[in-house]
């Protein structure tokens, strides 16, 4: 059985279609394994080799990975929710209620999106604190630290823009209060509030603007920055591991 599977796989690898997709042969030596990672669009920003220490739970508590997994969950559930949600004042609240009470699995997806969002803010903050206390902002990691701070802000903006979309009392007053905080900024404050809301009140325009920010602009920015963030982890020489660990004394 195993031999037939092996031979089938071997035959498959000889086919023209396989060879057209996977440009290299089997990854059976260290060199070809490295090449397999380098030559793959989805893997090339991951390290070819990692130190075993940096894979330990206490090195990172996998907080960055958890944040990313939550982002993927939010991306998928968010797209699914978009199939039932109209970003317009007469529909938005009813669509949200429909998702809760009428749509099959709607309440599951909505709550998954909501809870994953809460958890992501928590995970991203925890990730930042952990990196900070391990000195992850020091050279050569300064740039990636800065990217991480922007990613934290993007996470918060995503939360805030998503908060308006249910179009209930909580959403309305949260955005009323939040945008009034913006207008406290000297000189440009009320201008920025006007642009953000597309008017003087939290109305139709504000809902649409927050929707576009929430589902297009901010996720695109987050995606780009996450790519840079992951790639730089590898380029900066992996996770910061305590010097004691580096010496192998522990």
């Amino acid at each position, binding site marked *: 059985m195993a031999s037939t599977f092996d031979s089938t796989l071997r035959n498959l690898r000889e086919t023209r279609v396989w060879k057209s997709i996977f440009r290299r042969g089997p990854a059976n030596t260290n060199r070809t394994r490295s090449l397999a990672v380098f030559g793959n669009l989805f893997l090339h920003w991951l390290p070819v080799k990692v130190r075993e220490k940096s894979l330990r739970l206490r090195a990172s508590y996998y907080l960055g990975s958890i944040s990313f997994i939550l982002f993927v969950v939010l991306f998928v559930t968010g797209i699914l929710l978009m199939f039932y949600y109209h970003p317009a004042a007469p529909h938005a609240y009813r669509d949200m209620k429909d998702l809760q009470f009428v749509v099959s699995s709607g309440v599951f997806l909505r709550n998954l999106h909501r809870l994953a969002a809460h958890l992501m803010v928590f995970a991203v903050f925890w990730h930042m604190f952990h990196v900070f206390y391990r000195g992850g902002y020091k050279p050569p990691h300064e740039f990636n630290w800065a990217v991480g701070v922007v990613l934290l802000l993007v996470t918060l903006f995503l939360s805030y823009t998503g908060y308006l979309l249910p179009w209930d009392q909580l959403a309305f*007053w949260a955005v009323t*209060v939040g945008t*009034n905080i913006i207008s406290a900024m000297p000189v440009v404050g009320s201008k920025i509030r006007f*642009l953000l809301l*597309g008017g*003087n*009140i939290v*109305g139709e325009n504000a809902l649409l603007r927050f929707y576009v920010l929430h589902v297009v602009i901010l996720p695109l920015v987050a995606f780009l920055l996450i790519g840079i963030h992951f790639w730089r982890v590898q380029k900066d020489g992996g996770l910061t591991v305590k010097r004691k660990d580096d010496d192998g004394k522990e």
Partner: protein
Amino acid sequence: MSDTKDSFVSEAAHTVPGDKEINRRDFLNEITMGALGIAGLGSVVVTYQYFAPNVLFEPSTTFRAGNPDLYPIHSVTFLQDQQVYIVRMPEGFYAVSAVCTHLGCVTQWKADADMIACPCHGSKFKADGTKIEGPAPRPLPHFAISLTADGELLVDKLQNIKPAQVLKV
């Protein structure tokens, strides 16, 4: 070759001190960068203009508050749709904003405590809008109030007036 060099030097000697010679490459570079700068600035302006709506479908800021006789003397009436208090005192009428000057929550008139209270962060005001306590930075503004030709109260929420200006009916 030496001729052109000589003429270049002599030409440079004739120029006013501080006036730089410019060759074709620098000239074209500066023209191009200048044009790109102007185009970039222009695109920032039109982008701003695009995102600032010219027509707003928002409720009118001027409204009629009905006949003055609807409001008894010594009363504070909250008009929920307009988020305005119509206050009638013996000296006359005034219209006070119900939107808290702290972060924009809608306040409530507490008749038993004789004050206006904000549910969000606990600011408290007198019926004439002056602050009693809380984080609100300013008193509640007074709006322009007048009588229409047919004798109804007319409030303009875009026009703030001094608290001393009271409409006598």
